[in-house]
């Protein structure tokens, strides 16, 4: 297949065109132009599928990639070369991301046409969706960090706009600003990483970076304060990930982002944008390694995974539970990166995107049906739900699949990916040869989080769909779900892809229960850590209307069960994986079981635990006080105080005294002259009436009007000078 503007750019251009059309004339189109966006994304999906097809079914090689550039900005002059290229870099990861993003986005578009129906800004919602999709697809296709950054920010803007979609609500404004600003902290760091890398590499193309990493160009370079440049850049890029993927300590924005419409939560804050952070870290994995950052990453991931899971335990808002579970799952991915589980981290990204999108859509479906006639709003509170299984069977079905997937039940995708991460973490942190004592905590936290995940997800399911309806009136008003194209089909389609079999030939994902040959371990085969030395010699190809490439041959890859390790090493790894698999199955079922006991059998009282750990509970309710710390303390108390002080200083002190002070110096001189007049001239020339005169002549200067004083000045001045030159 050719990789030209004609075959690649449409992926971006279709949604972009849909955005432009909707932005300008959307309101005048029938159905407010939703079909434009949907057609745009479907076409984009088609083009993505072609690429996916070419990569997975055509080349089937882990080394195969396409890299094409064109010059965007060229400032070269004389001896100073400088140009910024844009272009595409497509490898297996890109191809999969493309398919996932466009597929999920397409389904969400379709679902939106159900969910947003009747909204006064129905058309505008689709406009944003199209723009967002453009951004995400562009990010995936980008060949360099700068364009990643550009699309990254573009998504940030869409996220901002969509969170603030219901702008009549004050909280929407707060949430959108919070989201934008928090991620912006990461973005700024990301920009710094770009600058740092550019200073060594002279570009920020992935390929160039790999190349320079392989040649050791980063070694010995120092950024600031003696920090090695590689570490600096790696950290800064990871800071970008922290911001965008809502990792500890910048996770605060994601729960608030649920202010946006549910489909947008599904697309942006579950499936794609937040995953973009992880995607970026994966892309820059060699840099992370070179910067010795992996342990740090693992810790961040583990802390996030565990911490968010704990907060999710007590949430009652169905979307909040999902939001925290998203953070938690993203933590898993980051943990995966940290422990070197490259492949599994990416797989989790994909599987999570699918099941989390599905979960959100399902939640959306539930929320949409529950209409409160008193407040004229949708109901998101789980305590008012219950027993909805009968009212909406399709939604229930989809959501159940996803819950099983996320809980890590075997045969579902979540198990496949998460389990590998946990296995790798176990090996990396505890059982492996290189495991240090300080590496033991992340795997433990990971398993704990797996337990909690299973528990709270099932809690959510049980509270929503099982038991008796707790708000009868609400329940009565809820219509029975009928199978409809734009409501249930996306859900069910996504639910189908929560099955593990799509991603791994073995049902558990551990290569144990194989149902097909190695060929079906395609995911593991095709996604490998970038081998930087492969990029030592490469040539940029122009990205144009014609493909000038010669025929490129790559050897088809084969599944390597030992992951390229030595026999003994591989054995250890497998052992760790087996233990991990066992453990994670155990904790998953344990979690489900406890949830069952608590919410179906009601044999355990959740309130008991709440009372027992009331302090803990309070901390959870306050989300570990992060919002308080950031908003009340850091921003309100510190930053704004400093700002006010500065502003007050600027106008009140600096301007008034230093600048306008020039005038007051004059005034002061004037007063000094007055003083001179009062005390010297007046007291001396006529002593009497001092007290009266003192007030009278307050406004006089040296120009007292007294001629004899003038004489004296004259005489003394002349004498002074003559005496000065004479002596």
């Amino acid at each position, binding site marked *: 297949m050719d990789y030209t503007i004609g075959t690649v750019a449409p992926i971006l251009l279709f949604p972009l065109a849909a955005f432009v059309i909707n932005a300008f004339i959307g309101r005048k189109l029938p159905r407010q132009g939703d079909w434009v966006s949907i057609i745009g994304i479907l076409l984009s999906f088609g083009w993505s599928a072609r690429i996916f097809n070419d990569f997975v079914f055509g080349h089937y090689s882990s080394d195969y990639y396409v890299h094409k550039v064109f010059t*965007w*900005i*060229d*400032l*070269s*002059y*004389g*001896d*100073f070369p*400088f140009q910024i290229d844009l272009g595409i870099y497509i490898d297996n990861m890109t191809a999969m991301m493309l398919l996932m993003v466009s597929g999920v986005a397409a389904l969400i578009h379709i679902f939106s046409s159900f969910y947003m129906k009747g909204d006064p800004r129905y058309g505008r919602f689709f406009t944003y969706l199209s723009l967002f999709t453009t951004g995400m697809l562009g990010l995936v296709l980008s060949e360099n960090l*700068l364009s990643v*950054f*550009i*699309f990254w*920010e*573009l998504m940030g*803007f869409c996220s901002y*706009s969509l969170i*603030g979609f219901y*702008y*009549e*609500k*004050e909280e*929407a*404004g*707060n949430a*959108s*600003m919070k989201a*934008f*600003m928090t991620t*912006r*902290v990461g973005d*700024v760091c990301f*920009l*710094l990483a770009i*600058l*740092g890398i*550019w*200073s060594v590499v002279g570009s920020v193309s992935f390929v160039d970076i790999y190349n320079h990493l392989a040649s050791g160009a980063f070694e010995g370079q120092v*950024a*600031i*304060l003696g920090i090695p440049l590689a570490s600096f850049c790696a950290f800064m890029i990871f800071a970008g990930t922290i911001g965008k993927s809502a990792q500890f300590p910048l996770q605060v924005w994601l729960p608030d982002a649920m202010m946006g419409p549910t489909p947008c939560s599904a697309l942006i804050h579950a499936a794609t944008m937040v995953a973009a952070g992880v995607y970026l870290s994966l892309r820059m994995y060699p840099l992370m390694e070179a910067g010795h950052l992996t342990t740090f990453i693992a810790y961040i991931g583990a802390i996030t995974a565990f911490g968010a899971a704990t907060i999710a335990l007590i949430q009652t808002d169905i979307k909040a539970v999902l939001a925290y579970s998203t953070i938690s799952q993203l933590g898993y991915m980051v943990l995966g990166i940290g422990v070197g589980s490259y492949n599994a981290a990416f797989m989790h990204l994909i599987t999570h995107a699918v099941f989390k999108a599905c979960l959100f859509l399902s939640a959306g479906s539930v929320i949409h049906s529950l209409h409160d006639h008193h407040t004229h709003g949708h109901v998101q509170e789980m305590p008012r739900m219950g027993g909805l299984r009968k009212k909406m069977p399709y939604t229930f079905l989809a959501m159940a699949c996803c819950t099983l997937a996320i809980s890590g039940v075997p045969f579902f995708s979540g198990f496949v990916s998460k389990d590998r991460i946990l296995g790798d973490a176990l090996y990396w942190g505890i059982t492996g040869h290189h495991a240090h004592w300080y590496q033991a905590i992340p795997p433990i936290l990971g398993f704990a989080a797996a337990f909690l995940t299973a528990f709270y997800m099932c809690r959510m399911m049980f509270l929503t769909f099982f038991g008796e309806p707790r708000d009868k009136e609400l329940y009565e008003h809820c219509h029975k779900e009928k199978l409809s194209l734009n409501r249930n089909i996306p859900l069910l389609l996504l639910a189908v892809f929560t099955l593990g079999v799509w991603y791994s030939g073995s049902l558990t994902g551990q290569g144990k229960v194989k149902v097909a040959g190695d060929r079906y371990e395609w995911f593991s085969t095709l996604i490998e850590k970038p081998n930087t030395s492969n990029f030592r010699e490469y040539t940029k190809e122009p990205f144009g209307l014609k493909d000038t490439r010669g025929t490129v041959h790559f050897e088809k890859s084969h599944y390597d069960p030992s992951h390229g390790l030595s026999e003994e090493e591989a054995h250890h790894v497998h052992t760790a994986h087996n233990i991990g698999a066992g453990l994670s199955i155990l904790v998953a079922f344990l979690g489900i079981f406890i949830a069952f006991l608590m919410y179906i059998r009601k044999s355990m009282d959740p309130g008991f635990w709440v009372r027992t750990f009331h302090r803990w509970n309070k901390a959870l309710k306050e989300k570990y006080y992060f919002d308080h710390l950031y908003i009340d303390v850091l921003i309100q108390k510190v*930053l*704004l105080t*400093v*700002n*006010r002080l*500065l*502003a*007050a200083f*600027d*106008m009140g002190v*600096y*301007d008034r005294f*230093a*600048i*306008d002070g020039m005038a007051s110096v004059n005034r002061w001189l004037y007063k000094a002259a007055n003083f001179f007049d009062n005390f010297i001239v007046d007291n001396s020339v006529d002593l009497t009436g001092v007290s009266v005169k003192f007030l009278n002549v307050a406004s006089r200067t040296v120009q007292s009007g007294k001629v004899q004083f003038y004489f004296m000045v004259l005489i003394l001045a002349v004498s002074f000078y003559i005496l000065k030159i004479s002596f």
Partner: protein
Amino acid sequence: MENLLSCILWLPVVGIVAVLCTPKGKDNAVRWISLAVTTITFVLTLVLYCNFDTSMSEMQFAIKVPWIKAFHIFYSLGVDGISLPMIILTSLLFAICIMSSWTITKSVKGYFALLLMLESSVFGVFMSLDFFLFYVYWEIMLLPMFFLIAVWGGENREYAAIKFFLYTFFGSILMLVGMVALYYVTGQSSSSFDILALQGGNFTNEMVSIFGYDFHFNKLFFWFMFIGFAIKVPVFPFHTWLPHAHVQAPTAVSVILAGVLLKMGTYGFLRISFPIFPEASVHYSTAIAVLGVVNVIYGAMCAMAQTDVKKLIAYSSVSHMGFVMLGLAAMTVQGMNGAVLQMFNHGTSTAMMFLLVGILYERSHHRWIIRPDGTKGFGGLFTQLPNYSIIFIIGMFASLGLPGLSGFISEALIFLGIYERFTTITVIAVFGLLLGAAYLLWMFKRMFFGEVIEECKSYTDVNAREIFYMLPLCIAVVVFGVYPTPILDIMRASVGELVTLLSRF
């Protein structure tokens, strides 16, 4: 073609005469005449653009006529890649400002005549190749500004106008000393005010004695010029005139002030300071960078504490001009190009912001985000003024450097340019972007989100005239955000030449 520049320069003067000759009471005629003049000027600058040879770094359309032979002063005009974007920006903004000033009713004739005079003098600054001429235009510009602020401004306008005038005059008078010193230092035989002839700095070893202290000619007069230009930029600590002037000035004047006049300062660096004092410039680039970063952070932090929209945007200008200073301090092609591009882009985006604030002010007659008593000044504008809000979003995000809109590219280029030279400073400056987003979004949130407050319910959305004059800016912001090459191409050669010159020191 030789006289094209003169045409552009003097056309507004013809406009002034026409405006002053209109009979009393025909205010609309005055408006239309001004609009016609500025529009024709804009078209002429586009002609200039079309005929500009982007591969040349030399001055083009140059014209040199003796003015004062006794002092070797010439009426010498020309444009290169650095000045052309500024000229285009100027003519565009003035045409827009005339349209935005349609609602001015207080002594219309005087207002438009002064605006046209301002336009002519700004052109003069950007076109002059003779230092003396440059200086004359630089100063002439103060007069219309003074009156425009002092007569048509807000309640505290006189203070602001006098402050602006004195501040700038102080700076330029130092520049005058430097200028004359340059004339004499080059040696009697080759004495000249020709900016191009002075380039290269051949007076390294001269010493100057002031109040008994000896200074290097080079360095001393670099600082003299620096202060002159820095006040205009304005660089911290010379910035305090700006909030006053901006807040008090009428909308159109704020637009010109922020959009064009601030650029004259940085243009001065590019045209005068750097080419004439290359050695000192390189020597003191760290200082420039530090001042730049202080500008960025200080401006942003001050902006964050403001409760007056216009003041907030005024401080944001301080912050954004700090980026330009950083780009200048970089002295690399990307940094310098970024700086010039940022000058242009800031011109468009900040002009948008000021125009938008002006539009709002015409409806509300106040500018409080939060009033002194703590209540909201605006609320729910998103609901009340949907079209206005969209334009506002574009302007705001262009201003905070969202990729895809113009501000980003220039800032990115600046950062790419400066990182290699001043890493620590860059790290600090990049966080200025964060602050920049913070205050704008904060303002946006306060004003646009939430329920429509009672007072805002009477506001009407932007009308056709307002949309019409906002449109070119929106287009510029978006187009140059995606595809900046048309502008970068113009400036590349000239900036490259300057960098080449600087790299020799």
